[in-house]
């Protein structure tokens, strides 16, 4: 059913050819294979992007190309060849010559894709040693440093000696790419190379991949986010449930998406869409017995202040034993019914601040007032009764659930004890599930049996269960695919309108924050560098830092823009 457009006439010979690839696991029948009738070809200096949500089969496809689809995987294809070498039925020795040497592979999530017990330099040099590309220790060290320089890791001599967890997220991802590029392979496959990175690091990694393409490498880029691939990709395959549903150049797809799923993916990208507009096609929020209020458009100053933070300071001891201010004199106020976005890269002090707002950490200086009364200065015993008024939604809902509890118990656990009878509690839980768009059939499921989007909905139901006035959302959509992210963002927006909750919305993703917030604070190194109404900040950012963040935002590159982007990324590596 793929919507095929005529292919451009090829100038160069194909490097990688895939025809009718099918990957299945165990006893699956052919129609239910994880990947079905996948075909494409790739030439040097070109980039093919495979886009789809998790579980669509894109990662399995990529792994099949290096013969690592898994021990129980059954790989079939009419043709699967690299530069004239038939890859079907290749023995282990043959595959090992190709892997690393001819096809470099960058796995998803650099933190776990690098051996946590080995130095970065050893990891990068491993391929060189395996394929006998270096003759001496000195040469190996030189090559490793040159590779780190190539991918733009600062202080390569020091970093080569360090362990993965000592590098920043962006540096780790670069190091992983360096390891894949070590033997100068002709094809580079990158699986979600920018997921979990903040915008600035993300932009740098994309620029690096673009540069790699310009050096004549053939690139396969895998992502759930169309905005991310749009800058680099020459051709995009949209995958859904194991099949390619649409293919075309970036410009073609964005201008004229033919398949509804492609349209859905495009709509899910929050950037460049008017604030308040829906991102997903269908999120039904029902709130029985409640009058639906019209969405709040503008916020009069007269709304009461709910949370007020004054000159918050929090110090931590750094690795060298010196005190470092994680939050350094931050003041803000959150008004009733308002969404305040807090933006910043990892390490900017956002989460530390969230913990102080929740009164889990005591500020070293300053204080938080809640509903006009002291909050952080109280003794825990006095505070406990009011704790229900502030809820939290975490980035990783799975980690915040007891894996042995059912959905029903998880939600019921955070109901107020005023709901006395068992029946009333059960009814309320079902009502809450309904409000977050989940069916009551999920009541007896356990967290591991839910999809990522369902889990975050359960987390939201749990957060609204005690009727809080404020919900602190700490990166609530960062671990989700764009299409799921869109649904969750819409849900949060609807709940706010219906229940009049205020959000403190923490994220590294500017487009998400822009979409949902009334006002925005930009944080850097523990301080506020910009604050104001959302559109004002995005239109006229005051600080250089905010400007660079906004410039680094990935957006859908429409046809006319292609070719004139990619100059904005050369400044300011953190």
């Amino acid at each position, binding site marked *: 059913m793929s919507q095929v457009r005529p292919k451009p006439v090829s100038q160069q010979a194909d490097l990688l050819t895939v025809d009718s690839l099918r990957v299945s696991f165990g006893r699956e029948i052919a129609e239910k294979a994880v990947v079905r009738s996948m075909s494409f070809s790739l030439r040097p200096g070109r980039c093919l992007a495979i886009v789809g949500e998790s579980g669509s089969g894109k990662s399995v496809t990529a*792994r099949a190309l*290096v013969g*690592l689809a898994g*021990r129980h995987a059954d790989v079939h294809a009419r043709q699967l060849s690299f530069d004239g070498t038939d890859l079907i039925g290749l023995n*282990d020795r043959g595959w*090992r*010559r*190709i*892997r*690393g*040497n001819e*096809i*470099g*592979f960058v*796995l*998803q*999530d650099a933190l*776990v*894709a*690098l*051996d*946590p*017990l*080995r*130095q970065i330099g050893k990891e990068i040099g*491993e*391929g060189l040693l*395996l*394929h006998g590309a270096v003759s001496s220790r000195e040469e190996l060290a030189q090559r490793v440093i040159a590779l780190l320089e190539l991918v733009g890791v600062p202080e390569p001599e020091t970093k080569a000696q*360090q*362990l993965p*967890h*000592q590098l920043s997220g962006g540096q780790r991802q670069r190091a*992983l790419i360096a*390891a*894949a590029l*070590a033997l100068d392979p002709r094809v580079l496959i990158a699986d979600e190379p920018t997921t979990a990175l903040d915008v600035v690091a993300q932009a740098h990694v994309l620029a690096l991949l673009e540069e790699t393409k310009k050096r004549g490498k053939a690139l396969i880029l895998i992502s759930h986010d169309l905005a991310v691939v749009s800058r680099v990709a020459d051709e995009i395959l949209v995958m859904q449930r194991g099949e390619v549903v649409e293919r075309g150049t970036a410009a073609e797809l964005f201008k004229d998406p033919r398949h509804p799923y492609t349209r859905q993916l495009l709509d899910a990208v929050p950037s460049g869409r008017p604030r308040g507009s829906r991102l997903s096609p269908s999120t039904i929020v029902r709130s029985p017995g409640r009058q639906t209020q019209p969405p709040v458009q503008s916020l009069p100053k007269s709304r009461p202040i709910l949370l007020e933070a004054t000159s918050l300071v*929090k110090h*931590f*001891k750094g*690795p*060298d*034993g010196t005190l470092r201010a994680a939050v350094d004199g931050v003041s803000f106020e959150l008004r009733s019914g308002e969404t305040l976005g807090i933006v910043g890269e990892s390490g900017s002090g956002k989460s*530390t601040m969230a*913990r102080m707002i929740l009164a*889990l*950490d*005591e500020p070293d200086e300053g204080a938080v007032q809640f509903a006009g009364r002291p909050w952080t200065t109280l003794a825990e015993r006095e505070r406990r009764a009011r704790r229900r008024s502030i809820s939290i939604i975490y980035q990783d809902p799975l980690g915040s659930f007891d894996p042995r509890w059912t959905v029903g118990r998880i939600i019921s656990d955070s109901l107020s004890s005023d709901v006395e009878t068992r029946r009333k509690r059960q009814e309320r839980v079902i009502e809450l599930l309904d409000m977050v768009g989940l069916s009551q059939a999920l009541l007896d499921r356990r967290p591991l049996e839910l999809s990522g989007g369902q889990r975050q909905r359960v987390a939201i139901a749990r957060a609204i269960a005690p009727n809080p006035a404020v919900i602190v959302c700490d990166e609530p959509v960062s671990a989700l695919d764009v299409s799921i992210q869109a649904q969750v963002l819409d849900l949060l927006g609807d709940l706010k309108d219906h229940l009049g909750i205020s959000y403190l919305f923490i994220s590294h993703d500017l487009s998400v924050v822009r979409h949902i917030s009334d006002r925005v604070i930009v944080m850097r190194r523990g301080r506020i560098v910009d604050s104001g109404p959302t559109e004002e900040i995005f239109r006229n950012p005051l600080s250089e830092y905010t400007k660079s963040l906004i410039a680094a935002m990935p957006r859908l590159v429409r046809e006319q823009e292609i070719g004139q982007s990619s100059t904005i990324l050369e400044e300011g590596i953190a």
Partner: protein
Amino acid sequence: MTLISTRRNDTVKVVSHNPLVWFARRILSGVAVVWAAATFTFLVQCLMPGDRAQIVINVRSGDVGPAPAAELATINAKYGFDQPLAVQYGKYILRILHGDLGESYQQHRPVAAIIAEQIGPTIVLAIAALLMAWVIAILTTLLIAGRDNIWSKLLSGAQIFLATAPPYWLATILLVVFAVNLRIFPVVGESSPMGLVLPTLALALELSGFFGQVVLNEFTRVLEQPFVTSARTRGMSDFGVRLHHVLRHAALPGVTLSGWALGKLLSGAILIEIVFARQGLGGVLVAATSSRDVPIVSGAVLISAGLFVTVSLIVDLSYRMLDPRIRLT
């Protein structure tokens, strides 16, 4: 772990970054453990039922009847039993500091000398068993982890069987099969390397099963980690990945267990020494316990405490070598 403690914000622990400070702390706490053990053995000696002088006389003469008062007084004066407890304790600790563990009631010789003569073979046996247990555990794990065939199931089953079988029973079986029937190894009491094989095996098999299961679980878990696939995408072979990446991770819990295991091996060795009639601490201890020769038993307790402290220090040091994150965070 340290990683978590720095992230948990409320109670940020200051991790000692200077290895020398860490080492000095460990030595001090080790000394404290040995001191506690010394105090304990002292109290046991004082609080044991019965008059100590009477016990000494009985042990020496083999009689059970009460001794004349004059004889008791001589013994009391000789061992200082008539002095206040605090003085006795002080003298006891001082003597230990000088390496004097007292004198055996029965043999009239310094305890330190008796233990020194006998402890060598016991330590050799225990360490040999530990090494062999590790070698067996690692070899089987490298071969069977993450593979789904009949051999891996059989070997894994064998590990569980070995982990639960009592070593003295294994020892007897080994003796009967390899020494009596097949005559490959000497039956009893030989101190040659050949004589070491069967006792070591008897001790090591149980532990290898135990280690094997622990390492195997961790190994299987680590095999699924993305960095393993990452190494394979660089062209590393399956076995290469197991050896260079996975084993190090999988060994960590095993290393932690090794300290505990050596303590277990030392006590296990005593049993095995009896079964194989080997020279070693086993015979001495059994004789001393049955004849209430308290100084020897106390000395052995003290030496074991010292050994245990040393071994855990070695274990912690090797853990820091295997897991560089601990050093650097």
